[in-house]
């Protein structure tokens, strides 16, 4: 390495690429990852120049920041046989069903606005009076929910079981991968693949806006690394990014910017990994990332997470981050915001959680209790004592670019204002 300044840095420096965690919600984001799964050139040996590799790997460390992050899903329903029974009806279908019943008729003196509000409240209210978005277990499965049932749908992602289904997978069938290999664990796609919001043009197809505006981000740091082509044993840290992504004037992320890791150790996963033929993989690790939508803070969790990233000639990493998301965590982060927090970490006001949850349901085309039961039905990991699976396999497409990852004080200069 020839051309760098050794800054007086308080702590360790990793050269990393940071990854954005995903969020979901009524806030709609345009994904910049390809709308459909692209098969990474996994077999190609990257032709990175030695000079660039020297710039990225410094003193056995390399860092990356995520610049693109989205669910890895299968093909759109209209382009495949994934949804032979049609699309998930969602809240709209429940309301239409309600209109056919006596309690779904407009009452005398009821304004149109009040009538629509009552219908919405009715379908989101459990028999015991509780709101179904905040208490989805109180409701029944949504009869209008449609799971992906096609048998040979190629989906993006990696094999989380490394070949054979373990006994505790609750009988869920894997998908064939877009690279032709079998065994892709992606039951989350089975749940949402027939939902309008999760088609390639849907609102939940990417999380770029929040990530690039600094709401959250993802960093990956490699330690004890000698080569980005072949290195049998490296230390890999996946952490939340405490800084906004630095962008060019035309809002393209800039390589070799500096980012600080989140100081909360819960948002930092350390594991071993390896690079073989320019492909980075890791041993399973539990990963926790931030997710912020409309000021509602939740966590995006992956248990036994794995990475499979191709090192591109331009120094970027591209591939999948996947693992098992506890059903309740997946429900909270993607559907009902029942556990959403404020920026200060307190439980968000109930009205805010309700509005966020019901807004999401309307925008993405689902019912809260329907989503919850569908996640339970498709769960394929971490069985409890009764043998019931408690987590669902989830795959994310991710792209990262070279960056410097540092350990430093990350308290905002505005923190004193926030705690007033």
């Amino acid at each position, binding site marked *: 390495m020839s051309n*760098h300044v*050794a*800054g007086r840095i308080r702590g360790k420096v990793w050269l990393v690429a940071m990854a954005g965690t995903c969020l979901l919600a009524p806030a709609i984001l345009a994904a910049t990852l390809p709308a459909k799964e692209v098969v990474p050139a996994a077999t190609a040996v990257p032709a990175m120049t030695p000079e660039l590799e020297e710039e990225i790997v410094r003193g056995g460390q390399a860092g990356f920041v995520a610049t693109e992050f989205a669910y890895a899903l299968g093909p759109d329903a209209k382009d495949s046989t994934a949804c032979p029974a049609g699309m998930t009806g969602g809240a709209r279908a429940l309301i239409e069903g309600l209109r056919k019943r006596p309690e779904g008729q407009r009452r005398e003196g009821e304004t149109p606005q009040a009538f629509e509000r009552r219908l919405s409240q009715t379908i989101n209210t459990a028999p015991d009076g509780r709101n179904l978005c905040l208490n989805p277990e109180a409701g029944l499965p949504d009869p209008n929910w449609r799971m992906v049932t096609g048998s040979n749908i190629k989906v993006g992602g990696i094999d989380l079981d490394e070949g054979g289904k373990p006994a505790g997978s609750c009988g869920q069938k894997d998908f064939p991968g877009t690279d032709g290999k079998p065994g892709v664990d992606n039951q989350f796609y089975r749940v949402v693949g027939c939902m309008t919001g999760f088609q390639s043009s849907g609102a939940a197809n990417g999380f770029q806006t929040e990530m690039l505006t600094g709401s959250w981000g993802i960093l990956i740091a490699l330690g004890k690394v000698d080569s980005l082509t072949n290195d049998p044993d490296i230390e890999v840290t996946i952490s939340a990014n405490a800084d906004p992504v630095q962008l060019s004037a035309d809002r393209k992320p800039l390589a070799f910017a*500096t980012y600080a890791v989140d100081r909360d150790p819960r948002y930092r996963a350390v594991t071993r990994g390896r690079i073989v033929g320019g492909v980075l993989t890791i041993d399973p690790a539990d990963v926790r990332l931030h997710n912020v939508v409309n000021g509602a803070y939740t966590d995006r969790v992956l248990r036994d997470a794995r990475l499979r990233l191709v090192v591109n000639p331009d120094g970027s990493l591209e591939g999948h981050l996947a693992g098992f998301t506890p059903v309740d965590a997946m429900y909270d982060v993607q559907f009902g915001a029942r556990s959403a927090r404020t920026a200060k970490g307190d439980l968000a006001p109930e009205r805010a959680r309700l509005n966020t949850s019901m807004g999401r349901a309307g925008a993405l085309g689902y019912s809260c209790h329907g989503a919850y039961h569908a996640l339970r039905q498709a769960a394929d990991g971490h069985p409890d004592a009764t043998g019931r699976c408690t987590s669902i396999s989830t795959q994310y497409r991710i792209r990262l670019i070279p960056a410097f990852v540092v350990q430093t004080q990350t308290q905002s200069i505005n923190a004193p204002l926030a705690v007033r």
Partner: protein
Amino acid sequence: MSRLITRLSTLAAGAGLCLALVGAGTSAARLEAQTDASAPAMVEPAATSGAPALRRLTESQYRATIADVFASDVPIAGRFERGLREQGLIAIGTSMGGMSPFSFEQYDISARSIAADVTSEKRRAQFVPCKPKAENAFDAACATKFIDSYGLKLFRRPLTRDEQARFLAVAKAAQVRLGGFHQGLEFALVGMLQSPHFLMRMERMEKDPARAGAWRLDAWSRAARLSYFLTNSTPDDELLRAAGAGDLDRPGGLQQQVDRLLASPRVEAAVRAFFWDMLQFDGFNDLFKDPSIYPAYNSNVARDAQEQTLRTIVSHLVTDSGDYRDLFTTRKTWLTRPLGVIYRVPVATRNGWEQAEYSAASQRSGILTDISMLALHSHPGRSSATLRGKSLREILLCQKVPDPPANVNFTAVDQVTRPGSTARMRLAEHNANPVCAGCHKLTDPIGLTLESFDGAGTFRAKENGVALDLSGSLSGTKFTGAQGLGKAFQENPATPTCLVDKLYRSAIGRATSDGEAPYLDYLGAKFAANGYRLPALMRAIALSRTFYAVTPPPAVADGKKSTKKEGSS
């Protein structure tokens, strides 16, 4: 023949059509004397000088003056006309440029915003030195106190009786028409702030009692020249007191003031202002980089790049009292995160600056490899060995390289992305034309050593896949790469000589004459004797007689024109 003259002659001879290589404001004879080791003139020669100056305040001086006279948060609503750069310095342009109607309109806007704030109900207790007997009546005593107090600070001398009476009349007339005493003061202050006696530094002279037939600046003008030189701002209360009390004429009195100002943190502002001017950072106002080629270059980088170099200069020359020549080899620098993207280094500090040090393996070398130098002297879409070489010669060595002829063919050098080509190869093709080759012999051997940095300042080992040949030369010394270039500048005798020239010309606001060469040699010798420490050079200038000496226009000198009131011309 001195070493430098030999080198200059060699350069000129090799320059073909570029025989116009000349010292800007520096005669060859002076350079010869300066670099002759046997002639360190440590005794100040008899003062030779130019005419008293009429200099317009620069934007930074205007702002600093208002901040010092009133407060830093007093609003200045007007905009400022771009400075006129003459002979390499805006400081010289301040005594040469005119004042456009637009500019005066902006001064009027600023004057009104300042006066309104100063006399506002919220702030008048802070700024008005007395309370009127009644708000709706004119209090002549209080108004006189206000006008005398700010007249002295803004005009940098006491008001004449006529001036005092005029501003009092304005204050009274405004009070009568508008009703409020402070509204009267507001308009009197607007008048002072619009006056050429505030906007321009009008130097006044008197006969030098120590030298028969010679003239010098009067005490108030000496105080102003000294203050703007050492602090880039108006004389403070103590300096005004000293000028009024005649302290500047007494032995030790001037030295006491000079040492006081040099010890104050305000000297940093003067050093910043001088180097901002010398390094031509006003060029950032026009600097454009193609975002598709240099995506990391943005307005934050443009702002921080200037500040990085100025911070490095201040910390090296003032805080650490370092050798000026080491600015071109120092590994210490300052960084922010936007700069770190271009330098490709980690910057842990999330908001603000952190001091850093180039690694031993780095190709960086002092301020020569700062973004402020590399990007400013490059094209929007590519680096430029020629622009860099030309600028470094003109800015740091005070050598003038002629502009290219109007009909030059740039085809070869514009083929930036031609596979397998480097700037050196493209320039070689371009220089096949002897009309071009002459000047490029002066610029390219310097600029090509910086080709390991692209047009934004990011390091690159290759261009178009080809390893870079970074060999070059300066004044007959051969070297390789930016570090070699930095060392060559560090060791080149023209480097400190040029600084002496520019600093002195900046201080007096005009070009120097051949007659002042012995004095500049004297300063050069003092600079060298003090280890090339900038504060010592500033002190030598500030304590010298020549700095305050003036030559009157012939009519005055011959006594054909009477001097003005208070004995000043």
